[in-house]
């Protein structure tokens, strides 16, 4: 009886120290919301400011009014950009470059990742690490040697590579392929070995195992890699700035900067509009693919 009393007596004292499950959860939620709100404010301020500015005339932008409010909203910036032939050219160049680069990247990195994660050949582990290390070399180190290479190539073969938008199709994959391969190696490695063994016994060759088993099972990874490759090629700035100069060869990020900044005159309204319009395609793609990305497709493969 005495022990029973002692036990019950000690309980109230213990409660505040450890707290209940739901109380812990409630606090965790509060903190997460607090930081989420901070995060949202921090990251949404620039695009909101861009949107506000894009709806103003140049006169209103330079006027000394509240910069966070639009007094005379106008769509003139949008109309001007969307009817300007050079802006549409940049947009088209960007779109073609990105789509082709994404396709090239996936065509190279998916089989590469499959080989590196599943076919154990001599040096495969070293090669896999090597692929990742290439990604760590920044483009700021590479664009000068690349420029020199293209120039030399031109001297030898008379084929002009500089100031041609399509040369970006060969340059961007040097950035996208290593990282996409690395992502895919991770996804493929998480697929249980028994799955390819089962396919092997069922009579599938390597290519069939890749296309019929690995790609469908690792679809979330594939989508992650696609999003990544698209974002990199859409937003790439340094390489097109270095390699393309004529107005008809430019892609969107460089095009906006070179055509809308004239000397020290910044056409802020159109710059912001161009940036917003440029950010739209990746946003749409993210929104569209996110569901697939999150869906856990590997559930149920093995015992889980």
């Amino acid at each position, binding site marked *: 009886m005495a022990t029973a009393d002692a036990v019950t007596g000690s309980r109230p004292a213990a409660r505040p120290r450890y707290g209940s499950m739901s109380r812990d959860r409630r606090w965790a939620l509060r903190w997460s919301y607090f930081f989420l709100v901070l995060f949202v404010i921090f990251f949404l301020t620039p695009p909101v400011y861009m949107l506000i500015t894009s709806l103003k005339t140049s006169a209103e932008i330079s006027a000394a009014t509240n910069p966070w409010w639009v007094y005379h909203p106008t769509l003139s910036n949008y109309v001007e950009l969307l009817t300007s032939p050079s802006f549409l050219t940049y947009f088209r160049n960007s779109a073609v470059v990105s789509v082709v680069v994404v396709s090239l990247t996936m065509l190279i990195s998916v089989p590469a990742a499959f080989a590196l994660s599943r076919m154990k050949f001599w040096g495969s582990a070293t090669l896999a690490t090597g692929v990742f290390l290439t990604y760590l070399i920044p483009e700021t180190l590479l664009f000068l040697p690349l420029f020199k290479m293209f120039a030399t190539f031109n001297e030898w073969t008379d084929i002009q590579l500089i100031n041609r938008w399509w040369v970006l199709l060969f340059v961007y994959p040097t950035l996208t392929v290593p990282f996409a391969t690395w992502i895919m190696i991770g996804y493929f490695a998480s697929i*249980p070995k*028994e*799955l390819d*063994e*089962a*396919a*092997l*016994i*069922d*009579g*599938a060759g390597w290519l*069939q195992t890749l296309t*019929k*088993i690995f790609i*469908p*099972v690792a*679809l979330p990874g594939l989508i992650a890699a696609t999003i990544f490759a698209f974002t990199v090629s859409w937003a790439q700035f340094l390489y097109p700035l270095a390699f393309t100069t004529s107005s008809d060869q430019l892609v969107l990020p460089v095009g906006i900067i070179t055509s809308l900044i004239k000397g020290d005159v910044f056409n802020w309204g159109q710059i912001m509009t161009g940036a917003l319009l440029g950010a739209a395609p990746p946003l749409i793609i993210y929104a569209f693919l996110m569901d697939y990305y999150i869906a856990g*497709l*590997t*559930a*149920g*493969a*093995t*015992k889980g």
Partner: protein
Amino acid sequence: MAEVKLRKIIKRYDEVEAVRGIDLDIADHEFVVLVGPSGCGKSTTLRMIAGLEDITDGEIMIGGDVVNDVPPKDRDIAMVFQNYALYPHMTVFQNMSFGLRLKRYPKAEIKKRVDEAARILDIKELLDRKPKQLSGGQRQRVAMGRAIVRNPKVFLFDEPLSNLDAKLRVQMRTEIKKVHQQVRTTTVYVTHDQVEAMTLADRVVVMNQGNIEQVGTPQQLYHNPRTRFVAGFIGSPAMNFIPCEVEQVGGGLSIRLTNELAFPVPPARAAQYQNHGQNGKLLLGLRPEHITEAGPHLEPGEVPFEAKLDVTEPMGMETLVYFPVNGTQVCGRVNPNAGARDGLPLRLAANLNNMHLIDETSGRVI
């Protein structure tokens, strides 16, 4: 359908020899179980038969053809994996028909075979589901269905029940046996569970450290184990091993366990132990079921003795009793009504007709 022959199979990983030159003949329609502790080489052997592992040395024949260099898909085998290995993005029907579709079978034939396998396994209503919508037992059935539809020469099972809970395991064990009775395909089955091995197998292959310890029917292994390892591995609770000496007493032999305790050897067995009196260290092997409570009438070969019980474990249909003899904990199985109590003495009887004498140095049963 086909027989499988292994000839001097060796598997070496760098320095480690996982399988050390084993020979095994598996007859057509036979259900053979490879059993042994983890790391004994049973799974490696199975994977070599499947073609998933290269063979370092030796020969594997399936249906009379040497298949050493034949890729898995051309060996005409089907394999069921421990974790099922179902294709997660395909329905049950697609999972089961995947192999046939790759071989470009006509649609009608595929449907016929899948339906037939689904009927045997009782999974007809699951054909449109995805693996993640299935329970563990259902997944294992689908994995078996995938093997059955191929109508292969040999079924290979790699610990197929290890991921299931105990109750389901017993149920699926029966299912596997039923399926084999219907399809009669030569089967090689790997498990570490000796109960599974005993219940399923036509013949059991006990493996240890890359070698085959003994091959035989479940009854042979149980009653006539050839080594201490097999004697200890087969049977649950495991056989008791008690250090002993063999004495010449009058015209017969006696097994002396302690100064106070000695069992006379039944005359039928005495001849085979005659020359092992001075053979150094010996062990008496006696299964728990051969140590029971002493009844009023003793059978020939039964020897009564008194033991002070350390622990008793009532199992319902029987009670396990543990008591020390010569420094070893010995297990016996007594009737639940025999009055066994922790810490109290009980009159027990050892049935020496079923005894084994083991040479401790060589590990062989004499």
